[in-house]
């Protein structure tokens, strides 16, 4: 903007100057040079600018803040009309990445159905008299995965060595399930009835989303990773405190020793590969690999010599046999192996 430096302004002129407003009200740095030069030209100008600045910035409006409760309530109302059941996205994007995810989900479903026909077994247990809700327990033994359809239409894919306890019919207030091990949840949307996953240390509450919970008793951490929607994670022992809200791509990791939960961004493949039949190893040492393969294939390893793991192993195995994977590993780690039924001997 071309302007005259010797502009002979009074206080009133300053107060009415649009370009002066831009400098003072909008703190536009591109005006700095002009007004600083303008002030330098005459000794009466700096006090005048200071006065004008005080007047302009001195006017303030009484604020009427929106109550938090109103803002949240209105959002829930909007969300129920805008966001469709079971996910965040109302328009299915033509992104190849998501397409891949949908087809992978279909394959998972088919595989899961087969698995449940072959391996599904359920045990009924009764809970205390205060909640006369009949619970069912589904168990995925070592080497097997199970897909469960819950009464509300939600789907759960249970990883190997895991169990899920759930009611045949949910209570009118909440939908509560108990998890040991790892599972991927696709929760049917119902804003009035939160879906709650309880594990040994943490509780996960959602309204309708998809997410993964890994809570194996022999792991140091419990993790919750969100694929769609929003999830709240809280410490079971410390309910009401330290709630953590997760959005897609975020993961909460609870440290069982330190009793702290931290939030991080997760890698889709690393966390969710399992549900698509892929063994994902990332910077894993030999002990971790053995533990993973034992669960995945339902075998036990007999390691008869020390395996040096200077280099941590990274790799993905999609629908590969144990023998195929062992061949690959034996080459990397330089060992011999023998398969004896459900026992693997490392020599």
């Amino acid at each position: 903007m071309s302007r005259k430096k010797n502009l002979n302004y009074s206080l009133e002129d300053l107060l009415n100057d649009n370009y002066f407003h831009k400098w003072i009200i909008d703190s536009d740095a591109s005006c700095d040079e002009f007004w600083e030069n303008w002030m330098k030209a005459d000794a009466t100008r700096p006090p005048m600018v200071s006065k004008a600045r005080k007047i302009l910035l001195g006017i303030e409006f009484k604020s009427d803040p929106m109550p938090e409760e109103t803002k949240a309530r209105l959002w829930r109302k909007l969300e129920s009309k805008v966001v469709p059941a079971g996910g965040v996205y109302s328009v299915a994007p033509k992104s190849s990445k998501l397409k891949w995810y949908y087809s992978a989900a279909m394959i998972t479903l088919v595989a899961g159905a087969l698995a449940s026909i072959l391996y599904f077994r359920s045990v009924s247990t009764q809970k205390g008299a205060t909640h006369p809700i009949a619970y069912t327990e589904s168990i995925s033994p070592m080497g097997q995965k199970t897909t469960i359809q819950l009464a509300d239409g939600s789907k759960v894919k249970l990883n190997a060595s895991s169990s899920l306890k759930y009611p045949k019919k949910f209570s009118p207030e909440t939908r509560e399930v108990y998890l040991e091990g790892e599972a991927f949840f696709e929760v049917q949307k119902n804003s009035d009835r939160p879906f709650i996953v309880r594990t040994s240390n943490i509780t996960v509450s959602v309204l309708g989303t998809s997410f993964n919970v890994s809570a194996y008793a022999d792991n140091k951490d419990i993790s919750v990773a969100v694929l769609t929607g929003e999830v709240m994670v809280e410490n079971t022992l410390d309910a009401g405190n330290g709630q953590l809200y997760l959005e897609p791509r975020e993961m909460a990791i609870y440290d069982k020793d330190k009793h702290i939960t931290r939030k991080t961004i997760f890698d889709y493949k690393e966390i969710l590969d399992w549900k698509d039949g892929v063994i994902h190893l990332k910077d894993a040492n030999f002990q971790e690999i053995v533990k993973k393969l034992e669960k995945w294939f339902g075998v036990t390893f007999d390691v008869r010599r020390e395996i040096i793991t200077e280099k941590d192993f990274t790799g993905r195995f999609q629908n590969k046999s144990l023998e195929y994977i062992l061949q690959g590993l034996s080459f990397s780690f330089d060992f011999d192996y023998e398969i004896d039924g459900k026992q693997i001997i490392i020599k």
Partner: protein
Amino acid sequence: MKNQAEDKLRKDAHLFLSYKSSDFDSHSDEEIWQALLKGSSIAFKYIYNKYADLLYDYGKKITKDNQLIEDCLHDLFIELWSRKASSANIRNLKAYLIISFRRKIISAEKKLSKYEKIASHQKFEMDLTDNLSELMEKEDNNLSALKDALNELPQRQKEALYLRFYNHLSCQDIAEIMAINPQSVYNLLHKALLMLKNKFTTFSILLGAMTLF
């Protein structure tokens, strides 16, 4: 050239679809708007979180009816979502939201006033900050007099001041919101500031004279 730009926007929008809303912090309103056009409900949530408070505050300045404000906010955002395709070209998201919101409130109030008389109340109530108090040397009488004078400004002058000073909108945007021409906005602001300056000068002279004795 045009296709290239569209492709880029489409790509960006797809990125947005899978991002968490805090990732929008580094994006302009224009980019967020483009993501919304592509159906990102995260962008929608972001816009709600960013502008609901501002709109509510403005609503409280032009009507006393809390329910009306909530209803209009609700309708505004539902429309924003469902009509997003037809309002593809907006210049300034903030101004666009305020314009639509103001129209909704005014037409809803008109409908209501057919049946009942709406009690007028002190709208656009203004306060003075410490800056101005300092200038006034903490003369309580003068301060409250100035505050009263500010509050007695005509409604339209106050609305123009509010939009310019409180919401940092340009005179062009304010003209659109208030459905008047930009020159009228300048005039409204000018009148309000002139009053303020005159009051201020009178008080200063008074104060200056007092300190002489």
